[in-house]
């Protein structure tokens, strides 16, 4: 080390304040060699000047300008959690009460489901009885709705006719629904263009 001057990469090691194995002899050489010392001081001066360069400030309001062009994406689970948090009361006692009520409701529901599961025959019987009573009521309501919508004449023709009449009426209904949907969409698009 004493017989030669420092190599360029060795100056870099010293400039970067490396502390690894082999740096100590370089420092020793630097202490005893005026030429290398002068070169190192020169390089150090430039490095110090570079490190002293300030961070420059952009004009005020960059965050606002950036955010005006960046849509913030909220994942569905975060949105759901935020909504739930929003619904929760802020005060601790109120939260405790809500928590207690929810626990009672949950426990009751669980106990009910377990009881029903243990009484499968009773559930089947109750379902059958309910279905028997509800079916004619629902069928009657649907028929009344259809008569009100299509008129008694059409209903009579449908009852006496076959699948052809039913097909014609269903197609007419589908066409009317499609036309309404496209019409509403066109109106909405026109409104957006105006805005």
């Amino acid at each position, binding site marked *: 080390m004493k017989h030669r001057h420092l190599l360029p990469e060795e100056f870099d090691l010293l*400039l970067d304040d490396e502390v690894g194995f082999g740096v100590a002899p370089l420092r020793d050489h630097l202490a005893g060699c005026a030429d290398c010392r002068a070169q190192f001081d020169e390089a150090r001066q*430039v490095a110090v000047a570079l490190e002293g*360069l300030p*961070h420059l400030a952009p004009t005020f309001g960059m965050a606002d300008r950036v955010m005006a062009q960046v849509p913030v994406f909220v994942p569905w689970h975060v949105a759901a959690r935020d909504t739930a948090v929003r619904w929760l009361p802020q005060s601790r006692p109120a939260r405790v009460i809500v928590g207690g009520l929810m626990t009672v409701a949950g426990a009751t529901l669980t106990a009910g489901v377990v009881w029903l599961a243990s009484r499968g025959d009773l559930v089947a019987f109750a379902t059958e009885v309910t279905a028997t009573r509800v079916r004619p009521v629902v069928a009657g309501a649907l028929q009344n709705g259809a008569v009100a919508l299509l008129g008694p004449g059409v209903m009579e023709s449908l009852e006496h006719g076959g699948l052809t009449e039913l097909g014609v009426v269903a197609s007419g209904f589908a066409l009317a629904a499609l036309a309404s949907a496209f019409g509403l969409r066109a109106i909405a698009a026109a409104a957006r263009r105006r805005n």
Partner: protein
Amino acid sequence: MPPALDLANLPDADVVALAKRGREAAYRELVRRYERPVFSLVYRMVRDRELAEDLAQDTFIKVLQHIDRYRPEFKFSSWLFKIANNVAIDHLRRRRISTVSMDGSPHAVTAEAVERTSFDVSVHEESALELLEAKELGTAIERAIAQLRPEYRACILLRHVEDKSYEEIAATLDLPLGTVKTYIHRARHELRALLEDVRQ
């Protein structure tokens, strides 16, 4: 309303995680935290304040629009500087820009253009002579940096202004470690030569 967090004291990784969960305040915190470093890097690459503002803004827009692609095993600042550097290099490739000093672009022909392309170095609590010397050296360094090749410029700025390690610079600029060392060595050598007159 989610609970308010002291974002300024959170590490980058946590702020990014909050941004990924759709917290607008986290987006703003990332811009606030890095607007100066990014603007400084881009400005020193392109040497035009107005253009640097636009490019820094583009950098943040790109980063925040693709925040979900950020991989936490890398430092956020490295990813951000990588995009800033790419934006600046892309611009330089499209339009060659040469040197501008702190006292304004040599191409500026009106007072307004000189004002627009110049900037101040904040030096506090110094005597008038020290201020003058610091400004002279600062101006000379800025001028010298502007004369480096863009690749050398990015490396030396990341090393000495942003205090990045060689490994981080290599990751940021997608360059082999050896290339980064070579670029920094050459940049230092060229800067020393360019600043010879000022130092004497």
